[in-house]
């Protein structure tokens, strides 16, 4: 009797709206501060379950003059977040007071949005990386789908947390140059490409400095498959079946 009552109320509750599971998803985003600003990287894949359905999804976008946003998770929710931010930046511009929202403010706004949605049991199914530079001050933060947020010198989402962050912890320095930062990111991206099933070999690297935003053209990394075991595949099992 007790069980039936609980089940009934659960069914009644599920009449309300909630995002139950993601459909089209992006995988890891990694980011770090470097000497002149902040640099972000992500691949361009949009997975549909285990199928790699879309191969040209831009998961890093610039927000206003001072920020970059990278997202993993449900792409439709990311697109909705971009619309919210569009409106936020628009209203900010309309004040026309010479001031503009910096990365810290945008990060805070996103945190509030994500946390409030989580409280309504209808999360935006994303992990967001927000990086930017304003008046020479570098900023890099992360927000998750339950509203967990923090700032750090280097961040990653999803698989990147497990595979990329240890590398970044070991090799990141405060005054790392742009070229070294790209090399370090590519090192992380390569590991992710090898070990993350939903990663694809098509990346974009975005950088933001006081001068502005640059998002690179998509490019691929060189992978190594030259193992001795692949040299003579039929060694030990000559002939066909």
């Amino acid at each position, binding site marked *: 009797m007790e069980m039936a009552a609980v089940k009934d109320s659960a069914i009644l509750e599920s009449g309300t709206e909630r*995002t139950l599971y993601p459909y089209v998803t992006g995988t890891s985003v990694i980011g770090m501060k470097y000497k002149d600003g902040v640099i972000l990287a992500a691949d361009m894949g*949009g997975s*549909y379950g285990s*199928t790699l359905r879309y191969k040209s*999804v831009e998961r890093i976008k610039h927000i206003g003059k001072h920020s970059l946003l990278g997202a993993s998770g449900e792409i439709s929710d990311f697109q*909705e977040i971009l619309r919210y931010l569009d409106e936020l930046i628009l209203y900010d511009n309309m004040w026309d007071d010479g001031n503009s929202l910096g990365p810290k403010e945008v990060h805070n706004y996103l945190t509030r949005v994500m946390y409030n949605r989580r409280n309504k049991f209808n999360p935006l199914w994303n992990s967001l990386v927000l990086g930017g530079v304003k008046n020479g001050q570098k900023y890099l933060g992360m927000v998750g789908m339950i509203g967990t947020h923090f700032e750090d010198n280097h961040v990653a989402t999803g698989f990147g947390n497990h595979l990329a962050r240890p590398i970044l912890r070991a090799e990141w320095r405060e005054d790392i140059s742009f070229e070294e930062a790209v090399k370090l990111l590519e090192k992380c991206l390569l590991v992710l490409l090898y070990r993350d099933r939903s990663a694809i070999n098509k990346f974009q690297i975005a950088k933001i400095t006081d001068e502005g935003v640059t998002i690179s053209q998509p490019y691929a990394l060189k992978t190594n498959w030259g193992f001795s075991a692949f040299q003579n595949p039929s060694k030990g099992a000559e002939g066909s079946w």
Partner: protein
Amino acid sequence: MDIDLSAPHSMGTTIIGVTYNGGVVLGADSRTSTGMYVANRASDKITQLTDNVYICRSGSAADSQVISDYVRYFLHQHTIQLGQPATVKVAANLVRLLSYQNKNMLQMGVIVGGWDKYEGGQIYSVPLGGTILKQPFAIGGSGSTYLYGFFDQAWKEGMSKDEAEVCKMLIFVPDICSVNMFWQKILFLCYHTITSQIMSYVLSRWQLL
């Protein structure tokens, strides 16, 4: 034999949208199934939204039909207010809006294709969840799984000075999706002409069996 006649009508579909030099080409098969039973073997999965924008529907037949009806209604009013034909982008975004805001209740993946004077021929994919992605070509529906490999190697940017080349590519599609391609409609949308051709080629092939 057990046939679940109360199973929701799903489309078990293959839908395709391709941009080419002159505009866009849309294609779809014609089978609607309820579980194992073929409820309709002559369905029209390419639906008109405006004079210049069409939508290929897959997933739940009811959901995609009602969304198409709403979007046609909104676009009609929008066209009157705007005073000129709606753009493909607006049409696709209306579909996305309804898809996204009702994502818990809807089960449909669509391809919106059309032609407008600003951007020419465009194809927008709106899969489950309400993501919107502009693509040079798009495939959808459960039958599309067989086509990923084919399109990956056959597709080229800026294809064909005439429709023949695109058509040639699409002719191979029924060979690949041989299960469902009993009847295929191909719709051409380009500047000046909107021609709809039933693929008699496909029809005659199956009649040989």
